[in-house]
């Protein structure tokens, strides 16, 4: 039976099911209790699981993310919610110097199975301090896993999996995805990390993406089809671990690749992807890997400026045509 859920409903279901399964799961974050979170993802969970397991925190991101590290080292499975990804910097020491390194520094004596849930991205006029995409920063630091679901289905499956990992996981949502809808089967199993999905197959060019930009890529592929270009669209779903196998197989078939994300281009994760693809497909590539990303400028409030800064289906189409040497 097909069952349509929004992205936030799917996330909420994942949280509910996981909390029912594992009494050690605790949610912490700002306004996540009575109000259910500013994006309403945790709506009703405090009523269901009580104030012991759904903790409304003060505005102390270092404090409660760090508390999650302590909880995780002592047998709990905390989830800390960062209302906006941009606030990761307020808690950065606890994420990057603490959560990611405890296992290694202790020679494997402790583990930190915690989940950070957050949302990122622009498109809503939230301006420079509330619109950034920071997955590359997480990718650069070993010790954490990174999921970026693009669909309600994957949001549920990946979030469920996040609670079964042995390490810190950041689940990065996108503010403009919460109201998107999609099929989510009743008994969806957790989706293993490190398994990309070919969301559309094609033969001329491979478009590699994740999170909201994946939707742009699919839209671009539709358009491209009309111009006779067959694009294969790969959704990485997690970038750590990274499923290069699927990517390489596709690029060796299409001989052309476009990577697309909403983070800034300079030192973005697209650079890593482009570098790896080139390393592993050098003899196969008919054109250099094209990168589609946000311009390297802070995200402006004004609608036309913001739209100009962020990636779009059109920019992906242009990139695909470029690697095809067409206009």
């Amino acid at each position, binding site marked *: 039976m097909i069952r349509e859920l929004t992205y936030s409903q799917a996330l909420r279901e994942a949280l509910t099911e996981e909390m029912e399964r594992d009494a050690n799961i605790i949610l912490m974050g700002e306004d996540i209790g009575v109000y259910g979170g500013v994006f309403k993802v945790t709506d009703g969970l405090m009523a269901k699981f009580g104030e012991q397991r759904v903790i409304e925190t003060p505005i102390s991101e270092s404090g409660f993310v760090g508390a999650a590290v302590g909880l995780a080292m002592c047998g709990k499975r905390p989830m800390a919610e960062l209302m906006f990804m941009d606030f990761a910097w307020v808690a950065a020491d606890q994420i990057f110097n603490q959560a990611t390194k405890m296992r290694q520094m202790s020679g494997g004596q402790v583990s930190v199975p915690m989940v950070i849930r957050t949302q990122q991205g622009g498109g809503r006029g939230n*301006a420079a301090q*509330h619109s950034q995409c920071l997955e590359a920063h997480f990718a650069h630091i070993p010790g954490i896993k990174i999921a970026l679901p693009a669909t309600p289905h994957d949001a549920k499956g990946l979030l469920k999996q996040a609670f079964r990992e042995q390490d810190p996981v950041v689940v990065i949502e996108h503010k403009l995805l919460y109201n998107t809808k999609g099929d989510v089967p009743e008994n969806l199993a957790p989706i293993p990390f490190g398994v990309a999905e070919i969301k559309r197959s094609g033969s001329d060019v491979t478009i590699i993406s994740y999170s909201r930009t994946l939707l742009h890529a699919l839209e671009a592929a539709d358009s491209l089809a009309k111009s006779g270009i067959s694009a294969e669209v790969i959704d990485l779903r997690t970038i750590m671990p990274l499923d290069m196998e699927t990517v390489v197989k596709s690029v060796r078939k299409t001989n052309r690749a476009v990577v697309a994300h909403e983070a800034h281009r300079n030192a973005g994760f697209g650079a890593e992807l482009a570098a790896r693809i080139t390393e592993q497909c050098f003899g196969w590539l008919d054109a250099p890997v094209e990168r589609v990303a946000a*311009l390297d400028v802070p995200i402006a409030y004004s609608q036309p400026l913001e739209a100009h800064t962020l990636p779009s289906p059109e920019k992906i189409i242009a990139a695909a045509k470029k690697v095809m040497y067409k206009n």
Partner: protein
Amino acid sequence: MHLAREFERRCEALFQQGLVRGSLHMCIGQEATAAGAALALRDDDLLITNYRGHGHALAKGISPRAAMAEMLGKVTGCCKGKGGSMHWTDVSKGILPANAIVGGGFPTIVGATLAAKMDKLDRVGVLFFGDGATNQGTAHEAMNLAAIWKVPSIFICENNLYSEMTPISKTTPNKDLAERALAYRIPAVIVDGNDVEAMNDAVCNAVQRGRRGDGPTFIEAKTYRTVGHMIGDSQIYRPKDEVELWRTERDPITLCASKLLTRGVTAAELSAIEHDVTAILDDAVQFAKESPYPELDEVFEDVYGK
């Protein structure tokens, strides 16, 4: 106060029309903190406010035209449309960029007032922040710095009992946040933030301390926002009669107006103010609507200096 309130009412309407974007955080019910403080300040005194800072900036003298154009993302806006509601700036009026990171402005005001002290200017710097912001580490680091460096920072905490949708009782064991400042031996006072005169007195004292070189002051202004945290806030987290009480009996504009009436200001004079405000805002909205958006290449400007 009236200007701030009506300005935000216009913004609310423009938001519903889709012309104002992002999140809109209104200060309705809290206007007296801004007005009381601004009256104690000179143009060259500094102000750093936050995402709920329209009232503060308008009181400090930002142009309603430039502010409204900013709300619509126009090139004539005070930040050329780049900052929007949360980052209003007007350096000519001492208004440094407003900050949308809770607690983010604390260190900055300390640095800004340290610069003033080093330059032997007698200007002070005011930081506005909420009750919730006192739970951020930066608040503490910065208050300690302000104390040891004896800078003329004036920390004004608008304690409106909620940080977003969470009541203060859940986030701190303190009822009075002034206690937090005492930990750094910063003099702290508690005032009725809905009483514009009390507010003004407290800030005047702090300004004098600052100008004299006596260092920072912490002012806890007890107040309340009678609207949601942002547009769309269902306000299920607080009792309706609590809101009603503050909206009717404790409204700073009404309180001020009644006081003025008892002191001989006429009703006609008061409604003249209302008319002025209407004219100013009609003009500002028209100006904003008629102004162009920035050119697209403008995104590459103001990232690095030239």
